[in-house]
């Protein structure tokens, strides 16, 4: 699609997990992941722990180099067609751990001002802009500017991290569990801030979270990942109302409900995800899938279009050969 601002093309990232030669073992953290994000939209990414969400985030921002595949920014390959330094100004990231993502020896003002100075803006100007950005994210620059990370709260730190990302004047911000570690009330404030900023600056978000309620609230489209693969991607409402992949269905069924008549009595998914060092054959989900049948352990389903911009990787959606 031509209007994609950021797209992933067959990204693969394997981590070496010990052993050499024939005994070499790799963790297939991200395996052949492709998707695209349109300008101004928010793509939510959900999945269990260890499904490759964070690795995908780091591949998208080029903090990790993929083993194969490429990331394109406005259709041009990052790292070759777009120099990394330029790419990084346009695609920024906010991390989960608000404390670890700030240098403990740097004041908040300097932390926000650091990025622009790297891109040739002089220090005084960068600090002036940093002050304005702190103000924008709801922190009084006179009071919070000279502070150190340990002197402020988690919510305030995450606002600083957002201001730091904004300092580059980026188009895309990858938010890797950016609100997951915050208290519910603070989380809501930060989410509202993110929504306002998106409207104000026409930002594109890639919002990674394990919290399905938050993802539903903020995303235009949702991507579901399982064991390093994309299992389903589609518009938020469609995904939540009519999931076409059994894994998405199980994830949604696991969402806590406030209605006592609809309480979850049985865990929809049994056990832990299989080991990504040695993923199951065929469809990777077949070992835990209630609807697994004939072709599932044999071959991978591949991406099947099941509706408008809605793709699910499941054999259940395959059109029977006889009917066509």
């Amino acid at each position: 699609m031509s209007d994609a601002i950021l797209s992933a093309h067959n990204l693969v990232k394997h981590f070496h997990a010990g052993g050499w030669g024939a005994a070499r073992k790799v963790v297939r953290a991200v395996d052949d992941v492709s998707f695209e994000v349109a300008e101004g939209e928010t793509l939510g990414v959900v999945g269990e722990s260890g499904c490759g969400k964070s690795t995908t985030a780091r591949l998208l921002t080029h903090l990790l180099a993929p083993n194969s595949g490429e990331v394109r920014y406005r259709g041009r390959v990052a790292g070759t067609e777009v120099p990394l330094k330029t790419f990084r100004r346009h695609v920024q990231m906010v991390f989960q751990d608000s404390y670890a993502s700030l240098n403990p020896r740097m004041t908040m003002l300097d932390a926000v001002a650091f990025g622009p100075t790297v891109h040739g803006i002089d220090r005084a100007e960068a600090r002036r802009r940093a002050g304005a950005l702190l103000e924008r994210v709801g922190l009084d620059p006179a009071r919070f500017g000279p502070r150190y990370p340990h002197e402020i709260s988690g919510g305030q730190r995450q606002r600083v991290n957002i201001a730091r990302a904004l300092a580059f004047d980026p188009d895309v911000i990858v938010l890797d569990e950016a609100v997951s570690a915050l208290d519910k009330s603070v989380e809501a404030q930060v989410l509202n801030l993110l929504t306002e900023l998106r409207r104000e600056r026409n930002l594109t978000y890639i919002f990674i979270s394990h919290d399905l309620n938050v993802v539903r609230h903020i995303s235009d489209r949702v991507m579901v990942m399982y064991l390093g693969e994309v299992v389903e991607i589609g518009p938020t409402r469609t995904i939540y109302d009519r999931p076409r992949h059994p894994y998405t269905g199980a994830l949604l069924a696991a969402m806590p409900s406030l209605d006592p008549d609809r309480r979850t009595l049985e865990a929809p998914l049994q056990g832990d995800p299989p080991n990504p060092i040695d993923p199951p054959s065929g469809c990777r989900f077949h070992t835990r899938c209630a609807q697994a049948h004939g072709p599932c352990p044999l071959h991978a389903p591949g991406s099947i279009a099941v509706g408008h911009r809605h793709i699910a990787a499941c054999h259940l959606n395959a059109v029977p050969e006889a009917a066509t």
Partner: protein
Amino acid sequence: MAVAQTDFDTLATADKPQGYWRGVGRRFLRDKVAVAAACVAGGMILMAVFAPWVAPQDPFQGTMIRRLSPIGSEGYPLGADELGRDMLSRLIYGARLSLFMGVTPVLIAFLIGSAIGIAAGYAGGWVNSIIMRVLDVFYAFPSVLLAIAISGALGAGILNGLLSLTVVFIPPIARVAESVTTSVRKLEYIEAAVASGASAFTIVRVHVLGNVLGPIFVYATSLISVSMILAAGLSFLGLGVSPPNPEWGLMLNTLRNAIYVQPWLAALPGVMIFLTSISFNMLSDGLRSAMDIKQ
């Protein structure tokens, strides 16, 4: 009253941002043991610098009749050594060479070792493995043996002694630097800095150095006492400082025969080494806890 005053101060400063080093200074001053250690270490340094003014007698001038005078003899408050030289003056002058031999190799090794360790830790992967395995070769030798071997190969003399001690201290300091840098390297603020598009050099200068030099420095100060003792050992073997120069390690060794006649006198240089090394160690302990930001 004093308590009320303190509370008031805490309240007044609670809402005021403070510089990192001011906080370190404040926490350090609160640590009585560390302050005492700093005073002793500072006193030793002052004593060494102003030795000619402080020492009551010439440390090289001996009187045979005064040989091994006990502590408290008239005109010789700490007695006289085996050649009848004033013990007090020799101990004061001895601080010069002993501290020099203790501090200089550690300081040079701190600069070189930090550079190697930070480079290895930040680069990671293969570069790290190669650098660290090469340094491991030095680890195969006990430090005393390594110092003696290098000194022996280069020949006697203070400069060669310094050089050999420096070589001995580079691997441990580099190893600490590497481990601290590796742990900092994994933190998200370094990733954020990488995501800003900054060069590796800028990231190390702005984000890594400030967070790793403290712990490395603290470790290095703890090596000062080891360095003093190793230097004393080299002097004993005739590889470091040579007589008649006053140096605590050398004095301890030349007085070892007097241990049956004047045990207290013979122990004096050891007491000085002990005092200095323990105060440097406690100083580094105090620094470490003062630099712990989460207090």
